[in-house]
């Protein structure tokens, strides 16, 4: 089936089988392999992407359902060669080790902090319960997210 969507600001027109998940479509048809797949049934959160502003499971969304949607993947968070303030905070706090889950956690936290730059630690932990990380123990991830709030607050404030 033919679909047209916007991925990281660029238009993409594709022909996909209905059974193709959005995560597989991004990886195989568009070469955006930053979106990782592990469980493929909605438990691990590695495939989290942002569709029309909301963080969703890439493995539980069909590519055909995303016809007309705006999609942001981990590749779309930063400009060329730069890191976003959230990514900088991840580096500073050692919020990753093997890195497999990191793409899904960055997209999840980006969506969360964009919605609510004042989010508290408890809610960050509740949201992260949907992303499995077996390296870090989550503490540095929560610290990085808390630190990144300041940058999201600045971004959401109207210019003085």
């Amino acid at each position, binding site marked *: *089936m033919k679909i047209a969507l916007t991925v990281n600001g660029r238009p993409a027109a594709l022909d996909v089988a*209905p059974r193709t998940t959005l995560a597989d479509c991004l990886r195989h048809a568009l070469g955006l392999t930053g979106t990782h797949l592990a469980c493929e049934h909605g438990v691990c959160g590695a495939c989290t992407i942002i569709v029309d502003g909301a963080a969703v499971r890439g493995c539980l969304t069909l590519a055909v359902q995303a016809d007309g949607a705006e999609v942001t993947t981990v590749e779309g968070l930063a400009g060329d060669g730069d890191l976003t303030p959230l990514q900088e905070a991840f580096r500073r706090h050692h919020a990753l080790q093997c890195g497999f889950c990191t793409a899904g956690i960055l997209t999840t936290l980006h969506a969360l902090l964009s919605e609510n730059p004042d989010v508290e630690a408890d809610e960050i932990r509740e949201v992260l319960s949907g992303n499995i990380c077996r390296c870090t123990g989550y503490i540095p991830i929560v610290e990085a997210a808390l630190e990144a709030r300041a940058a999201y607050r600045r971004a959401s404030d109207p210019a003085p």
Partner: protein
Amino acid sequence: MKLPAFDYACPRTLEEATALLAEACGDAKVIAGGQSLLPFMAFRLAAPGLLVDLRKIAGLTGIEVGDEEIRLGAMVRWRDILDSAALAHALPLLPAAIGHVAHYQIRNRGTLGGSLAHADPASEFPCIAVLCGASVDVVGAGGRRTLPAGDLIAGPMETTLGDDEIIVAVRFPRWPEGRRWAFDEFALRHGDLAIAAVAACYDMDGPHIANARVAVMGATDTPQRVPEAEDALNGRAPGDDTFGTAAEAASAAIEPTEDLHAGAAYRRALVGTLLRRGLRASCTRQREAAE
């Protein structure tokens, strides 16, 4: 696993959608958020030949809080329920229960119509619909009908919906002012399916409890009211003795399920503990609101 192959249709009207379902003679499934159906397909617990997507059909979204009832479109997502200030006031039990549904990303896509049609005995929404006596509006190739939520759910993962029928809305009666409520759930990890959960609501008639309703989910093969626990509450003063008696009555009355997560005796005990805890919290909440 990757999904099995299927055809996909995205009709713009309910007429087209029900016609497609009727034509498929049971080999089609409706997809809304897909948060239960797609994992089922990944596990090959379902392999429909056709998916009929509801996303382009108008009139299936929206939360309307009217004087008599609250109407929730079938495509209302968990996120919409949690974000609704009107619902937090008019039916606070619902967002409290929906806060236990899965995870952030799933709550952004999962819908209440999908949850009802999936009829997982450990799902929160069907339990609240049964507890509150909600009505479900359904459209099929032959027309519309309305049925009580309790009549929709036939068994674990089983409904009385026809092959061509689509849930379009769920309607909850409005609550009187001051109705108290309880919800408590136990799962191994936050966001996992409930091993047991209880929901309850009641009014105060002077110093006594009236119109008590108690429902159990996760511990039984369908979400269900527990009249024995309701009888133990009605006409009594709220307090530890009354709540303890109701909790014991609920534990004794249910026929708990068993699976690899928990045995029947454990689920029976959990239901009592959760109900006692939930009912106690219903009083604390009332006191805090009054202050």
